[in-house]
């Protein structure tokens, strides 16, 4: 079984990416690791990124042609400074230079926009799928849809699990999520999916 190693900024981001990826490539194995702390986030990822990459780099289970994905949100709508993002970018570039097959996948503006573009999730919620990459706070939009559906909140593990059940993984089709399309095209081009 081929492996794609995932480094994500938080648990829900890792779960969304992994669920989508597994829908598309069910034969792939996708272990993930997160930054330290009970509530990992982009700042934590920036602190730990080198250790996280190194952890996978030296893991004896990793094969030379396995891909590593570093996944995080762009957060352009709400971030006030870029140093965390710059640090992550620099660490990823260094890893590539060192010979690792690593891709930095950036969800615009949050990875939940990939869910708002997903036919399964949207059909289940009775909402119109679309390109939410440029909209502010897709997480809140999704939460609003869920509330309309019936008192589930996205900000709970149960609520998120319910959403994940309905993921089809087709949010990268034509006019929907460009950031997801970029990520999956890059993964395919880099032979990370076969």
């Amino acid at each position: 079984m081929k492996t794609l190693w995932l480094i994500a900024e938080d648990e829900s981001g890792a779960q969304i990416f992994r669920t989508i990826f597994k829908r598309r490539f069910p034969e792939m194995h996708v272990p993930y690791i997160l930054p330290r702390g009970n509530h990992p986030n982009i700042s934590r990822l920036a602190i730990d990124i080198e250790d996280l990459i190194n952890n996978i780099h030296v893991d004896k289970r990793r094969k030379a042609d396995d891909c590593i994905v570093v996944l995080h949100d762009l957060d352009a709508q709400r971030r006030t400074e870029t140093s965390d993002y710059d640090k992550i970018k620099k660490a990823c570039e260094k890893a590539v230079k060192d010979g690792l097959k690593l891709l930095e996948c950036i969800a615009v503006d949050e990875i939940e926009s990939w869910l708002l573009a997903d036919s399964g999730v949207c059909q289940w919620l009775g909402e119109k799928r679309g390109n939410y990459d440029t909209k502010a706070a897709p997480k809140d939009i999704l939460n609003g849809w869920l509330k309309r559906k019936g008192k589930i909140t996205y900000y709970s593990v149960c609520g998120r699990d319910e959403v994940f059940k309905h993921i089809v993984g087709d949010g990268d089709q034509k006019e929907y999520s460009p950031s997801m399309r970029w990520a999956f095209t890059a993964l395919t081009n880099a032979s990370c999916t076969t």
Partner: protein
Amino acid sequence: MLTRLHFKNWRSLKDVTIDNLTPLTVFIGANSSGKTNIVDGLDFMIKMMSGDPTPAVRANRGNKTRTLNTDDEDALVFSATYLDPVSKKHLTYEMNLKIETAKDLPTYFHSHLCEGEKRLFTQTIDKFPILVFGISRWREASWADEGHFIEGIDQHEAEHLLRRTKIFVQERWQILGEGFLPKLAVTFAELGAIYPIQNNGANLVAILDYMRDAHPNIFTLFQQDIAWMLNHIEHVDINLIKDQEARFSIFENAHPSIEAPTISAGTAHIAAMLAAYYAFDFKNQELPGLVIIEEPDTALNPGLLEKFVELLRDYVSDPEKPRQFIMTTHNPAFLDFFQPEEVRVVSRDEQGYTHVDPIPEHIKEVWLDKYGLGEVWMTRAFGGLPE
């Protein structure tokens, strides 16, 4: 000291070997990963060691003991390897057991003792008693087969090795199981045995009462340790009220002459764990002793965890009294005080079978000069967390 365990066809442990056990070993893993099955497997071994596996089989609901997708012909295999401190030899005692599913009864029991690859002793029982309804006891069994030593070996030495091995497994393993919480006030009728500690810690008061009366030096050490762990305690005692109850009592620094009105669950936990350790010294203290504790950190304040592990390290460092602790935990704060080689990660595969793995070597070089092991555990860098 126990160095290796092997389980086959035991509950979720389809074929699991746990090697290179250390004086302190901690099993971590998600809920239902199989940690308790390991502990229960050790408990099952103690019970089988008596030579009659029937009560152990029945207590474990017979066919529920076996891994799914196995049948009556698949033997349960339990094997323990330990370093005998007297002969300095690595000895392995293996037990094979077949069970008839329909009756929840053993049909075949084979055990043997090996030194390395060399077999010293073997025993096979394949005639088991039949339960006769209406008769309150088992019909006389064919337990006469006490086994035989292999020809051509030093039989005298082999006898000693077998006896010590049986004592080690049967008498020198003490288990505090899942959710243990000793009662601190019991009637005399409820006191229970003075050794070993019961799985739920129920006989703690009996152990401490005996310790105080028969081994006051050991009781003093116990007192010192519990007071060191919980520095509000001045001393502890066992209070006997004639014809009423026996009670574990604590006296606090604030009011050393007045018995404290209540005792917390954490104090009870600590008392049970320390009593299990000190009870080894009642007899044959030079023999190895193994304490197996499920979630010792339960009810302990996070600020006490380091002290507790320090105490355990002190206990296992005495060359005159070889001691060992095997524990389970869900607590990353507890894990922070262990070395990676002391930790085993328990997980289940897609078929539901348990695997037990060491922490990968790279974890040490990547993380541990900067961060605690528990903190790294939560990054998912070495498993042992729910999916």
